[in-house]
């Protein structure tokens, strides 16, 4: 169960990096960045998972069993998701502006700054 999670997250990260490195369309690069983010989030939430653990809700008087999944990574994941959404939003707005200024999304042509 966990192994699949980790494998899946690594596949997502690698796919994302692949998209960033090889795709010449600025949109696809943004999608790649998103993929990397999702992969990391998946890994983060998996890191806190414990087999047979319950939801981390502490209910003192009645609860007898204390085997929770780790709640900290879930909080971290939430933060990370928010940040990822922001990155995507900012990146997309920049992509729109690039289209305005350069008339293209091809990264081979958006290279006025070089050397």
């Amino acid at each position, binding site marked *: 169960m966990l192994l699949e999670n980790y494998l899946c997250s690594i596949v997502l990260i690698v796919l994302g990096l692949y998209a960033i*490195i090889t795709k010449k369309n600025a949109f696809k690069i943004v999608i790649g960045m998103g993929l990397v983010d999702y992969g990391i989030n998946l890994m983060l939430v998996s890191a806190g998972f414990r087999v047979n653990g319950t939801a981390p809700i502490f209910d003192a008087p009645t609860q007898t069993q204390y085997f929770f999944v780790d709640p900290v990574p879930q909080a971290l994941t939430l933060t990370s998701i928010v940040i990822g959404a922001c990155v995507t939003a900012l990146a997309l707005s920049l992509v729109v*502006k690039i289209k305005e200024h350069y008339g293209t999304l091809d990264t081979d042509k958006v290279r006025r700054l070089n050397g």
Partner: protein
Amino acid sequence: MTNHLPIIAIQVLFLGAFISGLVGYKSNSLRKFVIFLATGTSLVLTLMLFKPVMMEGQIISYWMGNWVPVSDWAIGIGLEVDQLSLFFGLIVTVTVFLGAIYSFKYMSKDNGQDKYYVVFMMLAGSVLGFVFTGDLFNMYVMIEIMTFAAVGLTAFRNHKAESIEAAFKYLVVGSIGSSLILLGTVVMYAQFKTLNLAQITALLNNAQHTPVILFAFALMIGGYAVKAFIVPCHVVAPDAYAAAPSSVSMLFSGIVNKAGIYGMIRLVFVVFASMNLPSMQFLLVFLGTITMFIGVTMALAQSDFKRLLAFHSISQIGYVLTAIGLSTILGLTGGLYHALNHTLFKGLLFLCAGAVLYSTGTTDLNKLGGLAKKMPQTAGLFLVGAFAISGIPPFNGFVSKWLVYQGTFAKSMETNNPGYVFVTIVALIVSVMTLASFIKVTQSVFFGQLPKEFENAEEVPLSMRIPMWILAALCLVAGILPTAVIDYLIKPAVLAIKSAGNYVAVMMGQEYATKIYTEGIAIPKYDYAMAGWNPTSWLILFGVLLIAFALVALTGGFNPRHIVGAENNNAKFDVFFSGEAAEHSHVAGNDLFWGLKHNLKGYFHFMHDVHNGVVNDYALMVVSTTALVMLYLFLLVK
């Protein structure tokens, strides 16, 4: 009370961002007041920390929401201000304060200023939070906010295509860096089930460096290398620095890449405590050396003022990294000193570039010229900055570079490794090349002949000159009083780097620390004195200076009667042009240093091809660097 100062200092900045966003669009002066108050308060609060932390040696810890560690397990988010944090914190608040004052006038020609200040303050607050925090995930969050704010500010002048392009590249590459840091954090959490730096330090102290830890370590080094713009992850830096407004470029070189350096130091020295390994030292020194060399040679080939300064930032960060990588007392002293100096003189230089941009509307070295007549103060201040960065005594760059040379050469004697001599030689040559490229800027921008279109250029307003004067004065002070700077600022920070045990003891409690550090917490001896460098020699120089001036004045050499001014329209005062009528002819920009460029043209062409401007390739460089670092760590670090 002191415990609350760091969190207030951070919050004030974020609060400033919030309030200025709230009220800023209504009134210009109100917004300026809010910003001034927020940055000023933050500066005062960090200065108030100076006495307890730097002089009395306290380490200040603060648990958010009073979530103190329970049964030796830190769950809450902690702020921790040790001497190293405060050292960088002071750099941040001073830079931000001066940058804010400069912005008031500098940005007055732009619209959308309310947004500018919001993002500006976010950047300031996030970097301060980054250096004060004691939590691994918090470090990620803060550095991500920083990247965001930096990207936003890079794209601020979004009517220019360059700004947008630079911002997009910075965002892509920067977010890869952040992702690497986050991934490293995740792996660390999975290993140790804690995010507190002190606790990880303690847990790692007895643990083996397993492959998983090395994996996390490599990811984080890669990530912070992107944040500090270390070659070969530096490629977006010049674009971003050049496209951002100058007050922001100053923050970029002053605090953004310092944040990367701080993260690097915190990780390699304190958390992973790996710097006693020669292979790690080699890695950092190697990266630092190529960073300084490539940075400066690229700067020589630039024809844009700010882009050139940006490549210098990279090169100077190389000095810092090299010195820190030596991991000797001398090296660390030199590295931190250079980090401080870099903030001062590079801030000054970027502000000068901003002043030139403000007055003339361009930073193209091939178009400018002769501005010293129109902007004498800016020219003078620029010369101070240029001399300081080239390490001309008595300015501050000399002191720290001297420490770096001594440090690298002493290291070679210590380890009997000739490689470090090579580093010394490269460092010295890079210093001369720095001088060369600043000569180029001086000649191209401030001296020579004034082009027709800049006849009406004026000196910048006083509120822009004040931060420049302050920075220039600090450059001189840090150059003339090196012992004082080292005693009060550098020495405590270096000792803090070297004694991770103290850090743990303050955060996690003394008992916990003694459990981990069974042999006691060793504080290294700071047995270094500025032997070959005595500032009193400068007092002699000044004595000689005065006397010589007096002599020259007595001989009548500078008697005004003999000096004939250029007021009238006489051909006598034209520049000599082999008898031809004087016409505008200004040797500038790319025309300089032909002999050098001709001999090294293969190298320059190659470097030009590497910085090709395609964002995919930049991303590939970052990823492959991380992969190589990882491979290196797996193979060599045990």
